[in-house]
């Protein structure tokens, strides 16, 4: 090995680390260090005038597991994920198939589907508040035209979480549609022609040819939707604040509340660690998938 190549390798190593270091510092300061600090602080009790902070081991975790609210919130969040992920994927796919086919007013349709994506969640929540308010809201006004009784969408445990879910789906479906749209445009037109010649029905064509080809996109969207089911909680601040009686409270909102409304950072930290653990599992699955995908490339 020549001295030149050796020098080049050292140069590359130095440059590599130099170029990387600004981002590495920021990532350390705002992602890695906080993760570890969260883990650490979840092992201590909260200090007050009467009881200073002390090491309590896993007590904050056992407290959480004994807290019915925590379980309710976890259940809510699973339900939230369980509904928003498949439904928004399904709607996004339908939107994309429509927006990609030769229908009238296609420009309008595409714009309408995508518009919620550019609105802040807070603004979206304000829009929907006007829909949901009992008696005054649009839904009730329309319902009363058909003689339906007034429904307190945000004020009943059975409907509050659904009301939240609908806003989330409304917000994210159009965004996911775009990815499907892009994938659909990469499907060669002759596949469709061949199917037409064979006399394949449209449904069979979609199910047998289009859906399998869209599979990677679907996985990508599913992961995004999963992350959103943790992250998208802004509308709770406007619509329900997690109520009534915690029926629509989601985990990130509960973390926020624990830390900034109840000033109980240690329990918030313990919850954060649990969320990170779950996200970590999702990440691992995603990596396996990504790995496979890069092999094919």
């Amino acid at each position, binding site marked *: 090995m020549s001295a030149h190549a050796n020098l080049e390798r050292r140069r590359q190593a130095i440059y590599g680390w130099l170029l990387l270091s600004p981002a590495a510092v920021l990532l350390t300061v705002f992602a890695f260090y906080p993760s570890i600090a969260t883990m650490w602080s979840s092992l201590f009790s909260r200090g*007050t005038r009467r009881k200073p902070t002390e090491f309590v081991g896993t007590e904050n975790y056992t407290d959480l597991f004994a807290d019915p609210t925590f379980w309710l919130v976890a259940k809510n969040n699973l339900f939230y994920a369980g509904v928003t992920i498949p439904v928004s994927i399904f709607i996004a796919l339908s939107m994309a198939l429509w927006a990609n086919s030769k229908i009238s007013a296609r420009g309008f349709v595409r714009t309408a589907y995508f518009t919620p994506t550019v609105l802040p969640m807070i603004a979206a929540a304000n829009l929907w508040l006007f829909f949901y308010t009992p008696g*005054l809201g649009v839904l009730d006004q329309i319902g009363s035209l058909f003689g339906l009784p007034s429904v*307190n969408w945000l*004020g009943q445990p059975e409907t509050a979480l659904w009301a939240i879910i609908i806003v989330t789906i409304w917000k994210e479906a159009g965004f996911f549609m775009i990815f499907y749209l892009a994938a659909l445009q990469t499907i060669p037109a002759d596949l469709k022609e061949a199917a037409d010649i064979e006399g394949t029905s449209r449904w069979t064509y979609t199910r047998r040819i289009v859906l399998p080809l869209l599979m990677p996109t679907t996985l990508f969207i599913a992961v995004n939707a999963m992350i959103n089911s943790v992250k998208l909680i802004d509308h709770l601040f406007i619509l329900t604040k997690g109520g*009534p*009686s*915690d029926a629509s409270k989601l985990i990130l909102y509960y973390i926020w509340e624990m830390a900034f409304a109840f000033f109980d950072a240690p329990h918030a930290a313990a919850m954060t660690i649990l969320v990170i653990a779950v996200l970590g599992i999702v990440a691992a699955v995603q990596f396996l998938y990504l790995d496979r995908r890069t092999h094919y490339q």
Partner: protein
Amino acid sequence: MKLLSKTGLGLASAMAVGLALPASAETELTMYYPIAVGGALTEVVDSIVADFEAANPDISVNAIYSGNYDDTRVRALSALESGEPAQLAVMFSIDAYDLIEQELIIPFEEVATSDADKEWLGSFYPALMANGQIEGQTWGIPFQRSTIVAYYNKDMFRAAGLDPEAPPKTWDEMIEMGKALTQGDTYGLMIPSTGYPYWMFQALAIQNGKEVMSDDGVTTYFDDASVIETLEFWKSLSEEHGIMPTGTVEWGTLRQAFLEGQTAMMWHSTGNLTAVKKGANFDFGVAELPGKVRLGSPTGGGNFYLFKDTSDEERAAALKLMKFMTAPEQAAAWSIATGYMGVSPAAYETEALKNYTAEFPPALVARNQLENAVAEFSTFETARVRDGLNNAIQSALTGAKTPAEALAEAQASAVRLLRDYK
């Protein structure tokens, strides 16, 4: 436009080279306060502050409005925790226990030492001082204070054949009149059960003859028989008597519902009075709450607090500001602008408020109710204990649990939270 904090250290100061700090020959105060009603009310506070600054050129005040009470507490405490300046704040009168426990505020006895100061401390309505007086000292000064009052639609009373000048005085009358007023899309009564359900509940419980907490903030009585009975009564208003919608009633949109004639009566803070007055296109009245065993309402609203981490000059300046803002003329102006009470008897002696109440008597109702008022629900760990009670109320009203079950759970969690404070 504040890219960097003025007090920024480390990274911030490294990057802030060249940004000159303002010369500070004067005392700067930062005050966080909640906005009572949407719209231009911040202008009212801004103009009071401007008047104060004009009268005291050596003090500059940075008044920051920060949403509702919960938001304001979060904002003020986040500021303190991250070393941002904050000398005083208007926060929930019931936050006192927690603020003391976290060693964030000081009692006014430490700063209000002159005779004039002491006289000032004694000038407020005693009922409004109750929430701020803990362990023999005064921690909060009343500013935007309220009681719950009953707003009613006189036109609907007339239409239902009721006397518009005789609103219900007892629970039984309330149900009876409520039934007469419930017609078509209109309910007889709405008591809000989001936002501050515990507040409404406390009013009902007092009227039923039972307090929900002890005076020292360490015991709650949620599972007491008459407290459970109170919740059963609230639920019966919709379940049995059908005069209130089922499920919860939204605090935030209730005023709108009342103004749109969706309900003939509503219970709400007197802080809403001016907004209702402006928005109503019908004849409305305001009454003291009805009673069962006794009459009563908790007080509510916000007090001034003085933070501990302040210099002597700042404390003196903050005290000056509080005195200015609670002076009779300002209290009167604030009361007229919002509907909140004038906090001292002297406020009602001012020309402005005298004229206003003569022309608009409902502005006196909240104050008249003070003789039956009690301190608002407040304990140590108050946010979480309150949350438990709120949840119990909501799950009973929505039918998820029975009142007895729900309150027993709330009591158990309150006992757990308050264990360490006994």
